[in-house]
């Protein structure tokens, strides 16, 4: 097959780096409001009916939204196998915590209202809370650790060795800050969703908590940036750059360099759009949640999430997973991808299917458009959650 050489290997790698961003942002935007809603559930809803309203606000769509995570996992496996292998095995117990929480979520949605009884239902409400909080927190902590570098090295066979000792190492101050930012971000976004889908008390409480979350997002994001500038060392490739060489991380040399995570912004000022959107989006979300705006509040938090996640990617480019113990083992866009042919095939599949997915997802959201109907939940006991 010669077709794949139509697109150069280095170009394909950049495209897949962008698509990695699209998938992560897609997950954070689409499933983010589900996670945020799960976290908000015990606080914005007091009566059983209110809680059912909150759950049914995301009930019909959370399942499709979660596929962004599953597709993200699959796409990282297919397009960035070393990233998939190193991060999933390195963050082993953290991944387990995420899985454990994510197992609770589908079951919680479906099973909670299948039985009466306040013990049963309250237990599932808290399971849903955990199912929202833990993934958001742990993923944020993981990103915070990636920015600082992760203790792993590759041997000559490219076998991966994780040199960290305990799970608690990940819970360092900067990691925790990023974890909190991630939680604040999805709570802000979840509040935007509830403002769109609910009315009355739930809507009022969601807006109140959401605006604090937006403020927290703003503060933590700025704080994280300042800390990154003053307190976290970046990484820099010191050998000649081979952008279309074989994917073998050990072929390069890397140096730890203070301030390297800001070099891209100096070289390409347009990249400042990333952090700017993160800040402006959160600010707009804060205002719009306060001023009874509906759809625009959700749009604002979407912009903020887009900006925040883009900032992480743009700061690190071309690094995707730096190594503290053996910087040469660090994974970059130029040496941690799949083969030329695989990247091409996967791109073709994505170009074909992504528009179809977006089309039917849009259709489903249009069918379900509008506030959650309380009367309907009370009437139909078997199919509403």
């Amino acid at each position, binding site marked *: *097959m010669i077709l794949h050489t139509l697109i150069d290997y280095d170009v394909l790698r950049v495209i897949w780096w962008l698509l990695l961003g699209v998938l992560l942002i897609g997950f954070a935007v689409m499933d983010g409001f589900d996670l945020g809603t799960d976290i908000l559930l015990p606080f914005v809803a007091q009566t059983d009916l209110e809680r059912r309203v909150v759950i049914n606000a995301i*009930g*019909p*769509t*959370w*399942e*499709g939204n*979660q*596929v962004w995570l*599953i*597709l993200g*996992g*699959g*796409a*990282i*496996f*297919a*397009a960035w*196998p070393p990233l*998939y*292998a190193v*991060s*999933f*095995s390195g963050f*082993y*117990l953290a*991944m*387990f915590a995420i*899985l*454990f929480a*994510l*197992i609770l979520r*589908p*079951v919680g949605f*479906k*099973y909670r209202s*299948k*039985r009466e009884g306040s013990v049963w239902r309250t237990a599932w409400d808290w399971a849903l809370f955990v199912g929202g909080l833990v993934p958001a927190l742990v993923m944020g902590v993981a990103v915070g650790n990636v920015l600082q570098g992760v203790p792993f090295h590759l041997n000559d066979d*490219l*076998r*991966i*060795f*994780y040199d960290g000792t305990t799970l608690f190492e990940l819970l360092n101050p900067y990691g925790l800050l990023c974890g909190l930012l991630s939680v604040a971000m999805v709570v802000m976004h979840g509040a935007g969703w509830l403002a769109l889908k609910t009315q009355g008390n739930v809507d009022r409480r969601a807006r109140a908590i959401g605006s604090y979350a937006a403020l927290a997002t703003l503060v933590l994001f700025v704080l994280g940036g300042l800390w990154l500038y003053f307190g976290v060392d970046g990484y820099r490739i010191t050998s000649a750059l081979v952008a279309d060489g*074989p*994917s*073998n991380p050990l072929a390069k040399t890397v140096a730890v360099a203070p301030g390297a995570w800001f070099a891209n912004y100096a070289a390409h000022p347009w990249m400042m759009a990333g952090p700017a959107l993160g800040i402006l989006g959160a600010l707009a979300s804060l205002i719009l949640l306060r001023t009874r705006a509906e759809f625009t509040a959700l749009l604002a938090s979407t912009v903020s999430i887009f900006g925040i996640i883009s900032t992480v990617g743009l700061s690190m480019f071309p690094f995707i997973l730096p190594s503290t113990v053996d910087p040469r083992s660090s994974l970059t866009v130029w040496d941690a991808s*799949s*083969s030329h*042919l*695989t990247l091409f095939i*996967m791109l073709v*599949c994505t170009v074909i*299917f992504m528009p179809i*997915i977006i089309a*039917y997802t849009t259709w*489903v959201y249009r*069918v*379900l458009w509008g506030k959650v109907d309380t009367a309907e939940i009370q009437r139909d006991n078997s*199919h*509403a959650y």
Partner: protein
Amino acid sequence: MTLDVVDLSRLQFAMTALYHFLFVPLTLGLSVLLAIMETVYVMTGRRIWRQMTKFWGTLFGINFVLGVATGIVMEFQFGMNWSYYSHYVGDIFGAPLAIEGLMAFFLEATFVGLFFFGWDKLSKVGHLVTTWAVALGSNLSALWILVANGWMQNPTGAAFNPQTMRMEITDFFEVVTNPVAQAKFVHTVSAGYVTASVFVLGVAAWYMLKGRHIELAKRSMTVAASFGLAASLSVVVLGDESGYLTTEHQKMKLAAMEAMWETEPAPAAFTLFGLPSQTDRETHFAVRVPWVLGLIATRSLDTVVPGINELVGHAQDRIKSGVIAFDALQKIRAAGSDAAIPPDVRQAFEDHGTDLGYALLLKRYVDDPRTATPEQIAQAAWDTVPSVPTLFWSFRIMVGLGLSFIVLTSVFFFLSARRMLDRYRPLLWVAVIAIPLPWVAVELGWVVAEFGRQPWIIEGVLPTAAAVSSLGAATVLTTIVGFALIYTVLIIIEMTLMVRAIRQGPEPDDEPDAELIPAHLVAAE
């Protein structure tokens, strides 16, 4: 016996995969049955079929969420526990998983919410399309997962790249049209249809016995019996075995399933009963039926089915060839640049490269396969024999159950055609008791396919022992305990809710068909 990280990782994978596969077959089959029932509703306009779709849909939903919840674990575990595997074959193996998400799971998961929430929001046809989208999505999902799994059994369309130290794709079309994957897809999906059919048949039979929801039960049984009969025939006739002569280890798996130690002149005899012994390398008390194995396995009279001893001989040759490849690989890597590779080394790698994985089997005994003694090579060759008694019995029980489903569905198909479904109560009890049996069969099917793949994680390419992450045994043990706990709690909750929903029965329809339920009964409610 202490379990090392390889054993523990295998244990965790087996545990989570077998658990996940409790929910998958029912999802596969029930989604199609729902679509069929709703199609009848839309075409005839009779409300009972809508009520059926909603009722079986409730049970579908209780089962579906656990499939989703445990499916994420499956996808993430490759990276978590099998990181060298992920590095080594991610270039090929990752693609079908990602395509599964793009093409299938998005479709299934986006529409499944609408299936439950869309009854009053969509037109009749709109909802029918939704249901079919769920069925199509779940079945396409199985296709891509089995393309990935089929590649582990028959790794076509890929080659080893010394520069990146991994397998890379050479021909995507070959990966997708892999005959092993095709056979597996048909077999697995049919098995899912059988599972759902037997489930529907059994639950409906219970209603008949209790004299409840008779109209719903009869129609459900008719659909389940006819669909189940077609599916159970397909499971057996289009069995997985058609893929079993394509590769060396598939042949080994077949020989182990049949406990066939020596190659026999075609067509080989089938061992109906026997006690295979791995240590004695023979089958005691074998009761053999001439010709049958050769006919089943090769669909011909003159194709020879090789026995275990002969295949071990092949493995020994390939290990020796693999050592040459391993030696050449070290020289290629030492050479640094492509130009510096001596021509004879390049030639040696080209000639023996496909056996590289066989050299890695020696890693169990020596660090450098080039230093292995002939005894170690012979030992490693015998390691390629999977556990014969396990495969022999798993296969026999699976096939026995498969045949019993043909009988079961045929009987009910006949009764349904004669309108005698409520005539024989003992038969209805048989249908109720049969409910768990398809699960036994499908789980044993997994054992035959995956346990039979050992010692390979990817046949001929990478031994399982080499594929694990560098994790501590205690760490893996922690997650095993964690998964075991949450999975146990959830299966208890799931079964309780399932039984409750069945006991509760279908919701009364707000505007039932006039002719199905007499007016005085409606008034009484």
